[in-house]
């Protein structure tokens, strides 16, 4: 062993500021400033999108762009509602009324009245169902397959693993047409089940490989210890392997979720009314008088939120090394 441990105290790195040299403190400050600058640079498009979502239509397309503006929910209302253009007479009647709710007041500014909700909330719900279910299945099956590949002697293991990986090699564009025809034939076109099946099979190859790497790193002594301690292999898997693999499971979940949440090409080709997800619908939020940038930005913003939440919830596990380290490598 190259390093030596003193027997009574584990190795800890001092984080006391008074022990850090002056030069080091300055370099820490510089690094922090650079990190903040990069973060701001990366976030500009997102911030811009967020601002646009709250702009009115003229403000959204103004040149030069407006940075300070009066926030309005116009974009969200166009995104979430179906509206009808009113005639001049009808507009006069509506303007005389004092009992109009806020959305209708906004609509009236454009001479419109709300006649119902748009398809967008349902499409967002479809996205949640399809992405959620396919992530659940691909990570669930993935962890089982990865465990088997990692721990057991499976005949033709390498070939199988390559076959699984090869599922991911064809670009989506190449397979959309055949899948479209097959789905039409077997009645999976425009169904939630069809989309879940498709995304699961696409994510599975990726999740098996990713999770296998994580499970390979869990020493098999962990399970063996559980086996001699009186547990069955399934119990050992549940109580030992799963908690130890949580980092990998979290990472795989986020990756799978982002893939199925963002997926555009298949969703566009294989769904229409019933199972249409959000990505192909957002660009189609077109108003009567040109592109509704505020509405598109509002849709994108709503679309962004679930992924941000999930990533935020799992962020602790995404930092590798939190749960590793109790087995010492000699």
């Amino acid at each position, binding site marked *: 062993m190259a390093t030596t441990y003193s027997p009574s105290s*584990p190795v800890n790195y001092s984080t006391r500021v008074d022990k850090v040299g002056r030069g080091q403190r300055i370099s820490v400050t510089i690094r922090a400033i650079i990190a903040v600058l990069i973060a701001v640079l990366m976030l500009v498009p997102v911030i811009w999108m967020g601002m646009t979502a709250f702009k009115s239509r003229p403000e959204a397309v103004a040149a030069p762009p407006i940075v300070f503006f009066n926030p309005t929910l116009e974009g969200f209302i166009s995104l979430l509602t179906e509206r009808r253009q009113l005639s001049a007479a009808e507009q006069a009647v509506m303007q005389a009324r004092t009992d109009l709710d806020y959305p209708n007041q906004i609509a009236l500014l454009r001479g419109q009245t709300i006649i119902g909700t748009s398809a967008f909330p349902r499409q967002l719900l479809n996205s949640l169902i399809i992405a959620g279910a396919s992530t659940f299945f691909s990570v669930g099956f993935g962890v089982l397959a990865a465990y088997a590949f990692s721990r057991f002697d499976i005949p033709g293991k390498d070939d199988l693993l390559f076959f699984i990986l090869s599922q991911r090699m064809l670009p989506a564009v190449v397979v959309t047409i055949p899948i479209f025809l097959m789905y039409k034939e077997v009645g999976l076109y425009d169904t939630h089940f069809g989309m879940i099946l498709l995304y699961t099979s696409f994510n599975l190859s990726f999740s098996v490989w990713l999770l296998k790497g994580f499970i390979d790193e869990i020493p098999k002594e962990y399970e063996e*210890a559980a086996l001699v301690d009186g*547990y*069955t292999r399934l119990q050992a898997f549940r109580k030992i392997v799963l908690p130890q693999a949580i980092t990998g499971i979290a990472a795989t979940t986020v990756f799978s979720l982002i893939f199925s949440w963002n997926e555009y090409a298949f969703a566009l080709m294989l769904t229409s009314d019933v199972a249409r997800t959000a990505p192909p619908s957002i660009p189609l939020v077109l108003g009567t008088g040109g592109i509704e940038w505020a509405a598109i930005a509002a849709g994108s913003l709503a679309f962004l939120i679930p992924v941000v939440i999930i990533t935020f919830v799992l962020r602790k596990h995404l930092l590798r090394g939190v749960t590793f380290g109790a087995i010492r490598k000699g």
Partner: protein
Amino acid sequence: MATIELHNVEKKFGESFAVKPLNMKINNGEFIVFLGPSGCGKTTTLRMISGLEAVTSGNILFNGRDVTWLHPSQRDIAFVFQFFALYSHMTARENISFPLQAQGLNKSDIKQQVASVAKLLKIDHILDMRPGSLSGGDQQRVALARSLVRKPAAFLMDEPLGALDAEFRESMRAEIKQLHIDQGATTVYVTHDQVEAMAMADRIVIMSNAVVQQIGSPAEVYHNPSNLFVARFIGSPGMNLVNGEYRQGMINLPGDNQYRVPDRWRSRLDKDLPSSGKVIVGFRPEAVRVTQEGQMRANVYASDLHGGYSMLHFEVADGSIIHARAGRGLDYAIGTPVRFDIEPDMVRFFNPETEAAMVNRE
């Protein structure tokens, strides 16, 4: 409490043997150490006893009951791993409770038993810490506690001290030995460290190349090695082994040295040696007596002081080296010619063809 019997137990990986058919009986309460260089099959044997590795053929009996194909969890054994295998997502207390939970004990019983084993191993104060923040020795104590808490019939330990620092290893060695004396449980311990084996074992099983070379008490394997491998492997340095030619009570050794065979060995050598008379003379460094009247001559090649004693290295005329242990007062300049004798009780003879030791039973 358990006796463990191995009947023709063997393990093959593909076509190559990891363990060649092995027979032995481990008595109740015995401390058995499997000792050998890495890859000799000692760990595989231990894993077959535990059930973590399936045997290729043969039978394993615990207390006369055939357990060859029983799941590890049904054998009532505890296994201590080299790298501790503590669950890093659980505290020390949860780790120790884990085997008891498998038995479905209620919470207060678990708590009480964990407390008593923690007291035994003096780890009460670290029970709520996670393994990652414990020192190596404390991690190993927690691992021992986890194996002890269930009061298993047998303990199986796979180099449990291998991952510890040298200074720490010695105190843990004493602790494990003490635990064994307290608990009296059958213990099978695997190591490649002969000092550990000599210090702890009731009997040592020396393995090499998938074959058991010798089974015996530490004194037996040290003083009466059954073959050249054991003679070389045990001791540091190992036994001096010198090629010679036997003729009528005398052995011609390199460098025109003549060695007079002790009388009680003569008939044995007359009877068992091949006609060529080729023989290997073996003697431990401490069997060398440096005296003016010694039969044999050599030159001092090197001498190193080990604190309590000096180790002298003699070069014989043909270039082979003989190690001799001498008092620390003795100091020889390099190149000094010396004469020495071999303590008659401590000389051993080996057949160079079979490599086996010659046995002289009075």
